[in-house]
C-alpha cells in the first residue's frame, strides 16, 4: 500500500512538472535547433549562388543521399534509445514482486 502511494505521488508530481516545462524554456529548446537547422542549408545556398559555378549534379545528389542516410540512422538510434530508456524506467518504477516466505 505504501509502495502504491509512492508511485501515485510520483506520477502526480511528474505531471505538474511536465506542464511547467511547456512554457518558455521548453519552447525555446525545441525551436532553437529547428531554426538553426533550417537556416544552415538556405544560407549555404545563398553563398554558393554568389560564386555562380556549375554544380556537379552527381556529387550533390550522392552527397544528399549520404546525409539523409546518416540522419535516418541518427533518428532511428534516438527512437530506439528513448524507447529502451522509457521501458527501463517503467520497469524500475513498478512494484517489485515480494518473495514468498513460507
Amino acid at each position, binding site marked *: 500500500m505504501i509502495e502504491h502511494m509512492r508511485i501515485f505521488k510520483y506520477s502526480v508530481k*511528474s505531471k505538474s*512538472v*511536465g506542464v*511547467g*516545462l511547456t512554457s518558455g*524554456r*521548453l519552447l525555446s*529548446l*525545441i525551436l532553437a*535547433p*529547428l531554426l*538553426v*537547422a*533550417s*537556416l*544552415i*542549408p*538556405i544560407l*549555404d*545556398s545563398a553563398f*554558393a549562388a554568389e560564386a555562380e559555378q*556549375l*554544380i*556537379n*549534379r*552527381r556529387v*550533390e*545528389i*550522392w*552527397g*544528399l543521399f549520404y*546525409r*539523409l542516410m546518416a*540522419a535516418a540512422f*541518427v*533518428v532511428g538510434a*534516438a*527512437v530506439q534509445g*528513448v524507447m529502451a*530508456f*522509457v521501458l527501463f*524506467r517503467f520497469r524500475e518504477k513498478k512494484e517489485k514482486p515480494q518473495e514468498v516466505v513460507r
Partner: protein
Amino acid sequence: MGSHNMIEWVYIAAVVAILTWVGADSWVIEKYIDEIPEDAETIKVTAQQWFWTFEHEDGTKEVGELHLKAGKAYRFEVTSKDVIHAFNIPFYTAMIDAVPGRINKVWFAPDQTGEFLIQCREYCGLLHSQMRAKLIVEA
C-alpha cells in the same frame, strides 16, 4: 527542467530538428538541380522502341551514340514517339521520363571524359533491356 520526462522532450526536439534539417537540405539541393544554366546547349532526345536518337543544336543527329564535351552544361529535351520510356545516365545521375506528346527537361554538365551508359529505365516492351546508347564525353 529537472523533470523525469525531460528525456522525451529532448528526444522530440532532436528528432524534429533533424527532420527539419533533412527537409530544408533536400529542398535546397532540389532547387539547385532544377535550375538549368542559361548557357546550356540543348540536345533533343527522342526515344522509340528500342533505340535513342539525339539531335544537337546545329541539326546533326546521332543514333545510339551521343558525343558531348566535358565541362559544358547540356539541357536534354526528352520525348517519345511510341510508349513511355525513361532517359537515364546512371553515372551522371540524370533521369527523366520520355512521354509521347510531352517534352521533359533534364540537365547535367559532364566533368569526366570517357564512355558512359545511357539506358531506358521504364519497361517499354520486349527489348527494353537492350534499349541502350553510348555517351562519349570528350575533352
